[in-house]
Structure formats: structure tokens, C-alpha cells
């Protein structure tokens, strides 16, 4: 339990910074929303007949920009990216930092098993990720509420945030898995980030070319993207199962490899 609180305290400052970032995004992004008038609506119909690749290049996607929630969908893409980076760096850093900061000897000579160390660290990271998600949710609801009826938007936003939480969990698990199983702890965060950027680039490439659509299972950024969630009105069960599976497997990998790890002192 000491370890858990120690980690919570260590991550506090960066969590506050990330939450400020999320607040700035939500506030500044929505501040400029103005409902489009009727000509806007017919334009919106035209945009929706465009081929998907063109929509992607023009930056609208198939979101309905005339509604506040649709407009928020654009913002959500960036919030999702932020959340993913936050959880990945947290997951990788929280495991790798003992070796990096040469404190592994201190921690591992304490009378607790490695599994318990892992559990405490992951629990702390989980709470951090959850707080970031809730804070983002609250900021989003407030900033969207200025333009739309709260009851309508809350259900959409909570769906989006649930999706975001699953993505966060995946990147958290990926980060800790990489840090626990990788040879060089110094490299853990950079490798994880490379993976994340690759996934992000892949999600853009998929938007551009329909031929690549089968690759969407490889990039978590596609699992619960705003246009899919808002149009379907729900999260795709296939992707929910897939992401839970990924989180499960990566967490097990993290535990097993951390238990067997040769810690460099």
C-alpha cells in the first residue's frame, strides 16, 4: 500500500499538467463552435456523399459538424491521442523508472514480492488514467453543454469516454508490458512511443485508403473513433472484446516478464 501511495504522489504533478492540457483542449476547441445555419446543413449532406479518402484529407471525416457533439468529435480525436500518450508513458515509465533511476536495488530488497510491486504500480497507474478520463469527461460535458442539451450530449459523451478508457487501458498495458519485457529499461518509453506513433499514422492511412481497412484491428485509434461511435450510437462489441483481450494478455505478459526479469543494478 505504501508503494501505491508513493507512486500516486510521484505521478501527481504530471497528472495535474495533463488535466490542465485536457481542460485547455476542451475549452479552446469548443469555444469556436457555432452551429451551422441551413446552408451549412446542405453542405453537410454534400460532404457526406464524398468519398471517404477525400473526407479524411479535408479533415472533416463523416462527422456532422452542425451539431455540438459532432463538432466535439473532431476534438475527441486529439483528446484520444493525448490520453493514449499519457497512459503509455505512465505505464512504461512507472515500471522502467526504478532501473533507469538506479533505485531498483532499493525497491526490490524490500520484503514484498515482485508481483505485489507490479500490482501496486499498475493500480496507481490505473487510478491516474481513470482520473484523467473522468476529468476529461467533466470538461467535455461542460464545454459541450453550452451548445447542446445536456441530456442528449451526456449519453454520447459517456460512450466516447468509455471508448477512450479502453484505449487508455490498452496503451497502459502495452507500456508496462514493453517496460517489463524489454532488455533496456532506458529504451522502454521510446519504444512504446514509436509503437503509438505507428498506430496513429496507420489510423490516418486507413482513413485515406479503403484497401487498408482490414488493418483497422491493428490500431486502437480506430477501435472507438468518434465517427464510428456517434453514428452507431454504441461501441462495437467486437472491438470491446478485442481490447479487453489485448489488455488481459499484455498485463499477463507484464507480470510474467517482470517476475523473471534480470534487474540491472
Amino acid at each position, binding site marked *: 500500500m505504501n508503494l501505491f501511495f508513493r507512486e500516486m504522489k510521484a505521478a501527481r504533478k504530471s497528472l495535474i499538467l495533463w488535466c490542465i492540457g485536457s481542460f485547455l483542449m476542451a475549452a479552446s476547441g469548443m469555444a*469556436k463552435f457555432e452551429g451551422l445555419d441551413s446552408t451549412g446543413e446542405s453542405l453537410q449532406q454534400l460532404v457526406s456523399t464524398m468519398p471517404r*479518402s*477525400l473526407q479524411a*484529407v479535408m*479533415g472533416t471525416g463523416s462527422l456532422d459538424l452542425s451539431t455540438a457533439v459532432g463538432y466535439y468529435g473532431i476534438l475527441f480525436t*486529439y483528446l484520444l491521442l493525448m490520453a493514449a500518450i499519457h497512459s503509455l*508513458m505512465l505505464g512504461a515509465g512507472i515500471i522502467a523508472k526504478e532501473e*533507469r*533511476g538506479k533505485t531498483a536495488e532499493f525497491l526490490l530488497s524490500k520484503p514484498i514480492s515482485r508481483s505485489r510491486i507490479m500490482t501496486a504500480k499498475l493500480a496507481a497507474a490505473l487510478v491516474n488514467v481513470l482520473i484523467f478520463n473522468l476529468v476529461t469527461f467533466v470538461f467535455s460535458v461542460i464545454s459541450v453543454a453550452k451548445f447542446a442539451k445536456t441530456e442528449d450530449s451526456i449519453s454520447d459523451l459517456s460512450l466516447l469516454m468509455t471508448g477512450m478508457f479502453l484505449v487508455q487501458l490498452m496503451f497502459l498495458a502495452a507500456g508496462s508490458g514493453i517496460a517489463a519485457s524489454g532488455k533496456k529499461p532506458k529504451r522502454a518509453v521510446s519504444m512504446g512511443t514509436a509503437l503509438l506513433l505507428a498506430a496513429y499514422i496507420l489510423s490516418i492511412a486507413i482513413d*485515406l485508403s479503403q484497401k487498408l481497412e482490414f488493418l483497422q484491428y491493428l490500431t486502437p485509434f480506430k477501435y472507438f473513433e468518434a465517427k464510428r461511435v456517434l453514428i452507431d450510437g454504441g461501441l462495437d462489441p467486437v472491438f470491446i472484446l478485442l481490447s479487453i483481450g489485448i489488455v488481459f494478455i499484455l498485463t499477463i505478459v507484464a507480470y510474467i516478464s517482470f517476475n523473471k526479469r534480470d534487474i540491472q543494478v
Partner: protein
Amino acid sequence: MNIFLHELKVYRKSTIVWTLSLAAVLVLFMSMFPGLTKDAADFQKLLQGYPEPVRKAFGISLESITSLLGFYSYVFSYIVLCGCIQAMNLGVSILSKEAREKTADFLLTKPVTRSQVVSAKLLAAISSLIMTNIIFLAAAAMTTLSVSQKPFDMGTFLMISLSAFLVECMFLALGVLVAAVMSIKSVLPISLGTVFAFYILNMLGSVIGEKAVRYLTPFKYYDTAYIIRHASYEPRFIFIEALFIVIAVSASYIIYSKKDIHAV
């Protein structure tokens, strides 16, 4: 000179990886260009059924974005993002390495001044960036030439491509400054956080159409649309960049020379 060569060697692998990934991303995206022009042509046909003003408004933006240089600029914005992460990372990491890895006493007891250390490291970082950009440019030119059916303006193409290096220099200077001012524990959270903050600011700026954002984020300094139209950069942004780099670099020299660096 030894420090310079040593740093080059240390960063060789990461430079190669960055260069290859940048080139790979570009090739991947540019290979979609033929498909996109086909989509655009189909959509143009569909547009015929719409009233004149709509056709005009859409036609123009479609034409510019589905032209080779238009699409290249779209793809290029992601390349610049990656390049800037590389640059900032390099800047933060190269100057903070000794303090982070507790080898500062080794380096700083050598008979070189701190300014010489900074110069060698800066030079190594710049060389690494230049190499990345040259190889990337070659790859980009080859890919673009092979996917284009119509001739395009090579000068403009080069100017767009070169703007990546200019933006990267700003982030390199910023990174070096950050490393000189702060005591850094881990590099990536700082560099990634900073670059993405500016990038998101830039994206939001273009969504909400804010003019003032242009001055705040280096990503907007060399607007590709402006380059395509005028075949030149905007002089005031070159000036701002030069000013920023001079201030950041000289501040780094001064601060690093006076800094308390803990040996162990």
C-alpha cells in the same frame, strides 16, 4: 572534435531509424495518391449536379488538395510532426545526457570548456538532422516523381520539403534550451509533450480559424498553401525563427556554462 564524433556515433542508430521511418511513412502515404485522384475525379462528376456556388467552393479546395503538391503538403504535415519530435528529443537528450546518466564528472573534467561541449553537441545534433533531411528529401523526390502523372513544380516541392528542416531547427533550439535550464530525468515525456502541445495548438488553430495561433506554433510558420501560391516563405516568420534560435542558443550557452551539474 572528439565529443562531436562521439555524439554522432551515439546517435547514429537513432538517426538511421528516424530517417527510415520518415521515408517509410512518406512512401506509404504517397502511394495512395493515384487512388485519391480517382476518388476526386468521381466526386467531381457528382458535383456537376449541384448549384454553381457550391461547385465553386468545393471545386477549388478539392482541386488544390488533390493536386500532387496539395496532397504532398497534407502528408508532409505528419512528417513535420515526426521530424520535430526527433529534433526536440535530440536537443533535450544530447545536452542532458551526462547529467542523466551520471557521467558528467567524466566529461566535465576533460580539458574543454563548457562552451566547447555545447558547441560540439549542437553541431552533432544539427548534423544528424541534416542527414535525416537529405535522405528523406531524396526518398520523397523519388516517390513523388514516380506517382505523379502530371509535371509539377520541383522548386516548390523542394521549398515545402525544406521547411521541415527549418521547423526542426526551432524545436532543436528549444530542446537544448530546456535541457540547459531544467534538470531532466527522462527525455521523452518532455519532448513529446511539448511537440504535441504545439501540434494540437496548430490543429485547433486551423479548425477554429484563428490567425494569432500562427505566431504561437512553429508548425504554422511555413504554411504550405502560402509556399505553393507564392513560391517563397513568409519573411517575417523567417525573422521570428532566426531571432528565436539566436536567443535560445545563446541562452543555452550562458546557462549551461554556469549550471551546477551534479557529478553523482
